[in-house]
């Protein structure tokens, strides 16, 4: 586990070794630590806007002694798994725009208003709590459900933002977004969380419309 202090020191050390100025986004447990929802995290999850920035970051952490590891061990066989680097108990998960089944969309980037700058070269923007919940449903781990529960219990969630983002994800080509989110939230309801039924109904409507439009498309193709 990495504590807040360790994370700060580590990111500052990485920033000192960066060869170029880069901007990245903290998601998952890292973002939750910056937002005060958590004291420690298993891994530092970072999303980059392009491959070049990720490579610059990779070079810096490699020079600190981090070694690449296989993402299948943690995420299983999924698309858009991160490049992972580990040293002792610390681990970096580095994504480029796509986080498993979600895209770190322009609206998500806009919502990431908190900025933390390390030295001159590393600017880390912190994902909004709504987006952290969304991305938590991309992975199917118990700890992610626990994290989502923490956020929902501790902040005022604007469920419309989450539904809108699910729509945006579908627009960006992630067709399963609404379905996965609905499934994830139903699991959270089983954990006694107060999630408005209206919100689930909206997600169900989206999925229903998707199914209908697919059906009509396949019918027209058959004809």
């Amino acid at each position, binding site marked *: 586990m990495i504590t*807040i202090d360790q994370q*700060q020191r580590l*990111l*500052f050390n990485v*920033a*000192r070794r960066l060869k170029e100025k880069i901007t990245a986004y903290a998601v998952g447990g890292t973002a939750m630590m*910056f*937002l*005060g*929802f*958590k*004291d420690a995290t298993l891994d530092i999850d970072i999303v980059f806007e392009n491959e070049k920035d990720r490579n610059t970051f990779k070079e810096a952490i490699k020079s600190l002694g981090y070694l690449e590891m296989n993402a299948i061990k943690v995420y299983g066989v999924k698309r858009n798994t991160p490049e992972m680097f580990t040293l002792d108990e610390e681990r970096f998960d580095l994504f480029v725009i796509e986080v498993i089944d979600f895209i770190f969309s322009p609206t998500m980037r806009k919502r990431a*208003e*908190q*900025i*933390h*700058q*390390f*030295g*001159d070269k590393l600017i880390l923007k*912190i994902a909004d709590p709504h987006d952290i919940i969304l991305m938590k449903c991309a992975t199917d781990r118990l700890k992610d459900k626990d994290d989502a529960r*923490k956020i929902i*219990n*501790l*902040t005022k969630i604007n469920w419309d933002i989450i539904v809108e983002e699910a729509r945006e994800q579908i627009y960006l080509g992630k067709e399963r977004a609404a379905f996965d989110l609905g499934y994830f939230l139903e699991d959270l309801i089983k954990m006694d969380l107060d999630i408005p039924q209206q919100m689930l109904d909206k997600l169900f409507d989206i999925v229903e419309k998707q199914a209908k439009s697919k059906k009509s498309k396949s019918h027209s193709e058959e004809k």
Partner: protein
Amino acid sequence: MQKTILLQKLSGIQTIESVRDILHVSKPMAIYYIHRLRKNGYVKTRRQSNNHRVYSISIDNKLGGKSYFDIINMYSPIKISTSVTYQIYGKEPGLEEALSYAIKTRSLRTILASLALFKKISNWTRLYNLAKENHIERQVGALYDLSKKIMKVRRMTKRFRNYSLSQKKYRFEYVIPGLKSRDFVDIEKAWKVYLPFNKADLDGFL
């Protein structure tokens, strides 16, 4: 109660009374909860004029670092309290960076407060480079001339002025979109930049 839950519930400016109200606890328990958060580095304490304690509770207190707003508040008679988080770690942010950041926020009060930085800015080369990077050279120049009218400021280098002063080909630009000045038209014309302040806005510096 868990530390993270305490932190989320009490984030912001608090007094013992407000902590009691939020958590529905007795005074000794409220003191104990603040003590727990302080031990973890989340609390900064100030005293009011009546000697009452005011607690600023935030994750930022633990993370450390400095923000551009801290720099502006250090030098300006007009103070800013904001929900915007821009923390910098591992280096002391310069006055020039703080000024350039303030102009980029396009927030009236932030820009107004940042005018005080002209009293201390001495590295004009750094300021010019930052302004050029952000395409705000003329805005910096116009705000400098405005500051000169209301307070004693450091002298701007001729090179800065010559490099950034308006040319015929330039179009008028805004510091804050849609806001023009009635009282500083001369500066606006010289730099081809609309200033967002009138004389009355600058009372805080007089």
